[in-house]
């Protein structure tokens, strides 16, 4: 179990991690999501005792990482962003070194063999690390973290720089490991987190922006009801007509796809189904539907909105609600300021755009 209480890190004057608190229960897979430079690695480095926090506390199975580092570190396997591999050693030589370094008590040969099989590095185990490809190095890094079978695994962007096939392999490995270990996984790739994690923490600019289970996230995502319709007909007329349909909260014209044919993004009330009415409307006006698709909000949308909120104000306004739901009351306080800003930005944009906001 990992408990993080008000963890803060300053690099000189630069605030890298701002007052982060969370807990990871035994056997849980926690996803750490954020853009590059958000403070993911810094947080992980603090959890593993590589750097110390400016204030706050990190407890690993109840042991403070700064008070009893050796005991705390013994229960963590860490794969840093850049695997700490000695280029001149063979894979097996390196793993043996790590085995000694961690003062591992398990039977050496069978344990290392098991790890090699798990990470699929058995056939390169006698090669020099310098000569290995990036994918293999990443897997050796993973193997290194697994030596000693630590109850907690912390993996910092384990799939970065790998090709799609390797990403899938590592992802499967992580899934497998999640069954036996408490796991924290960081990534800036959303599908990865979505694929393996029970719970997600979104971190942006050093602050925690969301902390919820995937289930709850998906719930709040699906409560937003959006669809994309491609229609011909005059843009202004179509917009007015759609807005008249009951259940529609807002509509916005997107790009012109073909000559005189636009995509319209419609946000509806929950449980509203306007497809039949849309068809009737088109029939009345003599328009044709070229495409109709429901547009579910994905984790990606939430992520984009949280991390670059000001960049896309219209969206921000329309998707404001679910995100507030993601954040628990305690975190909400911390986020109050950021939200106020976002709201201000959204308000401005509503005035500018002729379609206006919604909700």
């Amino acid at each position, binding site marked *: 179990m990992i408990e993080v209480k008000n963890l803060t890190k300053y*690099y*000189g004057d630069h605030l890298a991690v701002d007052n982060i608190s969370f807990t990871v229960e035994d056997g849980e897979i926690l996803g750490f999501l954020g853009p590059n430079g958000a403070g993911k690695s810094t947080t992980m*480095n603090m959890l*593993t*005792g*590589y*750097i*110390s926090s400016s204030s706050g506390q990190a407890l690993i199975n109840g042991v403070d990482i700064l008070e009893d*580092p*050796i*005991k705390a*570190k*013994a229960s*963590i396997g*860490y794969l*840093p962003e*850049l695997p*700490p*591999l*000695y*280029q*001149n*050693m063979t894979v097996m*030589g390196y793993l043996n*070194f*790590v085995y*000694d*370094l*961690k*003062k591992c008590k398990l039977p050496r040969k069978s344990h290392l063999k098991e790890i090699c099989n798990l990470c699929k590095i058995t056939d390169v185990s006698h090669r020099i690390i310098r000569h290995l490809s990036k994918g293999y190095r990443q897997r050796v890094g993973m193997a*290194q973290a697994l030596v000693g079978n630590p109850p907690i695994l912390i993996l910092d962007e384990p799939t970065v720089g790998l090709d799609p096939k390797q990403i899938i392999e590592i992802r499967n490995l992580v899934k497998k490991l999640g069954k036996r270990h408490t796991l924290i996984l960081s990534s800036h790739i959303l599908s990865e987190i979505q694929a393996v994690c029970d719970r997600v923490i979104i971190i942006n600019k050093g602050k925690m922006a969301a902390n919820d289970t995937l289930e709850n996230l998906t719930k709040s995502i699906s409560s937003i009801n959006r669809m994309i319709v491609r229609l011909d007909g005059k843009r202004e007329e179509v917009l007015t007509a759609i807005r008249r349909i009951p259940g529609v909260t807002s509509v916005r014209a997107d790009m012109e796809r073909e000559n005189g044919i636009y995509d319209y993004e419609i946000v509806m009330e929950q449980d509203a189904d306007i497809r039949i009415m849309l068809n009737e409307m088109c029939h009345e006006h003599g328009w044709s539907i070229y495409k109709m698709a429901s547009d579910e909000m994905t984790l990606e949308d939430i992520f984009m909105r949280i991390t670059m909120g000001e960049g896309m104000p219209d969206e921000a306004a329309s998707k404001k609600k679910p995100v507030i739901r993601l954040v628990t009351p305690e975190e909400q306080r911390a986020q109050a300021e950021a939200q106020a800003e976002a709201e201000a930005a959204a308000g401005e944009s509503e005035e500018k755009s002729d379609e206006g906001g919604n909700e």
Partner: protein
Amino acid sequence: MGAIFRREMGAFFTSPVAYVYLTVYYVFAGVCFYLFTLSYGIADMSSFFSMLFWANFLLIPVLTMRSFSEEKMQKTDQGLLTAPVSLGGIVLGKYFAALMMYTIGVAIIFVYALILSFFGTVAWGIVAANFIALLLLGAAFIAVGVFISSLTESQFIAYIISLLLLLVMCVMQELAGLIEGASVPELFQPVVNLLATGMNAISFYNKFYDFTCGLFDLSSVLFYVSTAAVFNFLTVRVLETRRWR
């Protein structure tokens, strides 16, 4: 500590460092042995030993320059610092590995003494005392080198700075002589004298010279050992403060 020591030893021999170091050391020792002992046709090795003193400031940085710099550069220190080992264990593991390499180099003097023993009587006591003196000297210098290496990411800078620092430490007694000989106003004379005495007191060469003559002084031993201890301690502190930045 054991794991780090073994890895360091392995790293010395899987990289050119060990071979370059030992080759240069053996060549230097061989040339000195020929010039200062064999060519005179005497079995007295004391001038040979005092020459070996001067190899250290050039060669010890070769052994120590990579110890922490390389780890920092390659980010492998992250593996060490997040492993369940103490900082002291990490520092000492690296320190003793370098000291081991140094000892392998110094041990050549026994070979030379053995060669001499075929042609004359060798004072084995003096040879042993010199071996210990060289070890103690190395113990102190290596601690300095490892410390410098912990301060920088660049092996080259670590080498140059260690070399300069060790050189200053080696010529301390010469510097003291220069200061003493300098003409200064009457008023500053006591200060200058005090400075010169102090510099002579921390001279590595003076203490080493006593050993080469066969004088075994416990205070000198203590001096070398405590220098080693102080610099190893400083290295631990450097690693520790780096985390707080």
